[in-house]
């Protein structure tokens, strides 16, 4: 079969790219080779549009063992303990087939983590849907939540934190990002770099089927009205097999049989074999007749491009084959030597005793195209005049926010996830960050995910900074020292220069904040082409952060602990209402600038709050984010049995601005009144601005002369949306 423009286009390649392929091969590729190129050169695998921008991110630090470029990032948490983590998107498959799309998103990210020798200890997710009134939203929400739960619950790894947001921008392109966190011994980490020639290349796990063929290419194109027809490209997950694969891999990893290991994720057998060979500057030869297949008469093309789940490729040390095979047989998994490493620096594919494809590895990897796409700077958005909006009461506005889909209590979702399996979840979702104890140790990690798409849309540099800072704050409020992040960069079409500008500038913001806070990026994933019919989604970078609690004595959450505690507001309140949740929920307005970030204040405030927590002055703590001070205080009440009595601000400031403003770098701390002198001393010594804003009290949520609501009513207001949806 000849290769014409239509075939090239069907493979998601541009005609110019095809010309490069011919040049690299010095001949025309056959269809199998074209398929392999398309799998390696698509946006999802090659990062061709993002690479030059990603390079700018800070990825090193004294706690970083492995930054981006491996299956996941690795950080050092002391005593030979390492944490391995990564976040990844599964947006396109989840829109087409929400249950399987979300489930395999979880499965894929788990493999990235256990491939490196870690036992996964926590799952997180960030999911974004269209407007609740959109006809597809309800079934997408149901499908995605049960898919995430279905996979995590079955494999037995707790789903401990996440965020769920709704906005029209995702009506036709939802976001499903899954993050996995694992624990390994520092001296037992496995990498994907092949070493040595004539080493056995082993296929383990599930059999290969025809599912997911060209999945990575699908994830690298925009949707159109016929997207439903792409359903066959969505993979089907089997968490049971993944559990077996996890246990078998960890069992084999106890000794030194493995040279390199790589999961078959996007672009399956193709990318796993090419990546291992490429990292080791070797060649790899595969005998495709040996690939375990689920269906009859599968062609080499189908085998190389299938994205069937729960498969791994392993390069074994000489003489370890029998030992390894025994382990996989114990777990009833396929174990087949399908090839060997070579010194040819080529990917050689054999089938029925013939070479059916042969491509230099570097043509697929290092010579893959890299684009410096055109991008435009975002103009500073115009300020809006807050006074032009009708004045509404504090109470009315608060109720509107607390009962909105974006701010309603999410237990309808989190109750569908097993949060406790493994018995090390010291703090479940519902607080600023989840806390997972390291098994058999005193120490724990805190984990959180965050995004702020409307801030990023309005002004990407500030938005990028803000999410990193919010994530950092969420780790601090539970008493963890922030260590590193992973990011999932969900954007529209990179061929559009405004989208590319949003990408470049969000990354600039992320970079600045990460650098200043010494909060490096150790892994991540880019998802472009999120949009339908030329309508791009809001730029939605998602940050997943990990922090360390050296000695976990009592998990700290944001629920008030007792009556008559003092409430301290750390950080200055200016009353920034542009881009606020107040305007969005009350007036459906998403205009103006995002709140400013002052990284110096951010760092100082955060470090001193952490110090106060470590010295046991803090009974509960919460960062102030969407909805401002009043929403943060409500959340602290709703989770507890106590309300508040808040004084009117002493300074001359509009009450709406004071209570709903989304100024950054702020925290609320609950402290015992006896602690005040010590706390005051520490705060003053460190030049931290703070205000005494009031006290906790029984029964009522009260703002002097303005609001008095029974906290049971507040709870009800916050807990009805999902149940009625």
């Amino acid at each position, binding site marked *: 079969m000849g290769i014409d423009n239509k075939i090239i286009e069907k493979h998601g390649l541009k005609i110019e790219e095809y010309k490069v392929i011919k040049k690299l091969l010095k001949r025309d590729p056959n269809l199998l080779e074209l398929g392999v190129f398309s799998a390696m050169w698509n946006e999802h695998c090659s990062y061709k549009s993002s690479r030059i921008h990603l390079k700018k991110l800070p990825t090193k630090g004294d706690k970083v063992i492995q930054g981006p470029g491996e299956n996941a990032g690795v950080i050092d948490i002391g005593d030979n303990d390492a944490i391995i983590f990564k976040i990844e998107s599964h947006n396109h498959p989840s829109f087409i087939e929400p249950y399987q799309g979300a489930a395999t998103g979880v499965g894929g990210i788990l493999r990235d983590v256990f491939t490196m020798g870690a036992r996964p200890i926590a799952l997180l997710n960030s999911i974004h849907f269209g407007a609740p009134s959109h006809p597809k939203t309800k079934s997408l929400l149901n499908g995605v939540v*049960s898919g995430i*739960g*279905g996979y995590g*619950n*079955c*494999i*037995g790894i707790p789903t401990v934190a996440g965020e769920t947001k709704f906005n029209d921008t995702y009506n036709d392109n939802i976001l499903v990002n899954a993050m996995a966190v694992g624990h390994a011994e520092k001296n037992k980490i496995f990498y994907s770099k092949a070493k040595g020639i004539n080493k056995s290349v082993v296929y383990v796990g599930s059999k290969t089927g025809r599912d997911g063929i060209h999945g990575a290419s699908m994830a690298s194109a925009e949707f159109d009205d016929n997207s439903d027809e792409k359903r066959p490209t969505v993979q089907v997950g*089997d*968490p*049971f*097999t993944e*559990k*077996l694969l996890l246990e078998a891999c960890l069992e084999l990893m106890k000794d030194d049989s493995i040279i390199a290991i790589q999961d078959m994720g996007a672009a399956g057998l193709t990318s796993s074999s090419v990546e291992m060979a490429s990292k080791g500057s070797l060649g790899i030869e595969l005998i495709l007749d040996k690939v375990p297949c689920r269906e009859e008469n599968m062609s080499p093309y189908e085998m190389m491009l299938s994205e069937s789940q729960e498969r791994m490729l392993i390069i074994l040390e000489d003489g370890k084959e029998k030992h390894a095979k025994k382990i996989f047989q*114990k*777990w*009833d998994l396929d174990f087949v030597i399908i090839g060997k490493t070579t010194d040819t620096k080529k990917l050689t594919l054999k089938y029925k005793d013939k070479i059916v494809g042969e491509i230099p590895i570097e043509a697929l990897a290092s010579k893959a195209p890299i684009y410096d796409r055109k991008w435009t700077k975002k103009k500073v958005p115009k300020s809006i005049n807050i006074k032009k909006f009708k004045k509404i009461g504090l109470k009315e506005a608060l109720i509107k926010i607390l009962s909105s889909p974006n701010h309603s209590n999410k*237990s309808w979702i*989190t*109750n*569908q*996830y*097993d*949060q*406790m*399996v*493994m*018995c*090390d*979840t*010291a703090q479940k979702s519902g607080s600023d960050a989840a806390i997972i*104890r390291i098994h058999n140790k005193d120490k724990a990690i805190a984990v959180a995910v965050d995004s702020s798409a409307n801030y990023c849309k309005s002004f990407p540099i500030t938005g990028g900074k803000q999410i990193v800072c919010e994530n950092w704050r969420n780790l601090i409020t539970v008493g963890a020292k922030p260590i590193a992040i992973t990011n999932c960069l969900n954007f529209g079409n990179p061929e559009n220069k405004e989208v590319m500008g949003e990408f470049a500038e969000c990354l600039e913001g992320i970079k600045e904040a990460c650098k200043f806070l010494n909060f490096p990026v150790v892994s991540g994933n880019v998802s472009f082409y999120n949009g339908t019919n030329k309508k791009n989604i809001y730029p939605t970078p998602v940050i997943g952060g990990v922090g360390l609690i050296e000695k*976990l*004595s*009592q*998990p700290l959450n944001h629920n008030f602990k007792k009556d008559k505690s003092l409430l301290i507001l750390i950080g200055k309140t200016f009353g920034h209402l542009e881009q606020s949740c107040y305007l969005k929920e009350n007036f459906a307005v998403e205009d103006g600038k995002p709140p400013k970030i002052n990284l110096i204040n951010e760092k100082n405030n955060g470090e001193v709050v952490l110090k106060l927590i470590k010295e046991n002055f803090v009974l509960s703590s919460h960062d102030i984010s969407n909805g401002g001070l009043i929403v943060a205080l409500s959340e602290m009440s709703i989770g507890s049995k106590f309300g508040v009595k808040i004084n009117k601000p002493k300074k001359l400031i509009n009450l709406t601005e004071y209570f709903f403003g989304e100024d950054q770098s702020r925290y609320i701390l609950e402290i015992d009144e006896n602690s005040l002198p010590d706390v005051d001393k520490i705060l003053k010594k460190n030049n931290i601005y703070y205000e005494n804003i009031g006290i906790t009290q029984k029964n009522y949520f009260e703002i002097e002369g303005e609001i008095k609501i029974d906290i049971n009513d507040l709870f009800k207001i916050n807990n009805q949306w999902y149940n009625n949806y």
Partner: protein
Amino acid sequence: MRSSVIVFPGSNCDRDIAVALQRMQFKNKMIWHKETSLPKSDLIVIPGGFSYGDYLRSGAIAGKSLIINEVIKAAKSGCLILGICNGFQILTETGMLKGTLLRNKNLKFINRDVNIRVMNNKTRFTSKYKLNQVLNLNIAHNEGNYYTDSNHLEQLKKDNLIAFKYSDSNGNTDDKFNPNGAIENIAGIFNDKKNILGMMPHPERMVDELISNSDGINLFSSLLD
């Protein structure tokens, strides 16, 4: 006290129960499902999880596994058997306990802390609890909706074979406090001889104050007596 925890492919609470047993000073062994004999045990635990992926029906394939014949033999000779969550489902699949576990009434997986009331404390599993004591334990299941026929239900009541019922924090067993639709709020039952206990809530998740609470501890300490 010697305990054995049966590990099926897809079990995922096996480590949790082993940790709890060791904490309570049991001499515990993990038994792989392909084994054909059991070490001498005073207690056999079938842990929670998704044995064989819950394919066919939860617990159905495990109920036909090699090791399960040994468990049945041991039970007949009076060994104590504890099935938690998927373990309870497996016990009903083998017929060691009567009745069955249906899909939750809301057709969703449910994970949350629930209150259960101790209905019988004169057994090897519950002697350290007070009668009608309310425990706060965690549930995590898709199929926890216990159902049985009216004859068996009568027998359960008559012979005091209901171990736990879902309740509120005061022990009210109103249907309002039933998370999954189980008949008469039943959360756990015994066999006739009371040497087998099947329960949906996870006592092994409640043995550590730092993580949750200590309401599960007395189940294990009862067994040590």
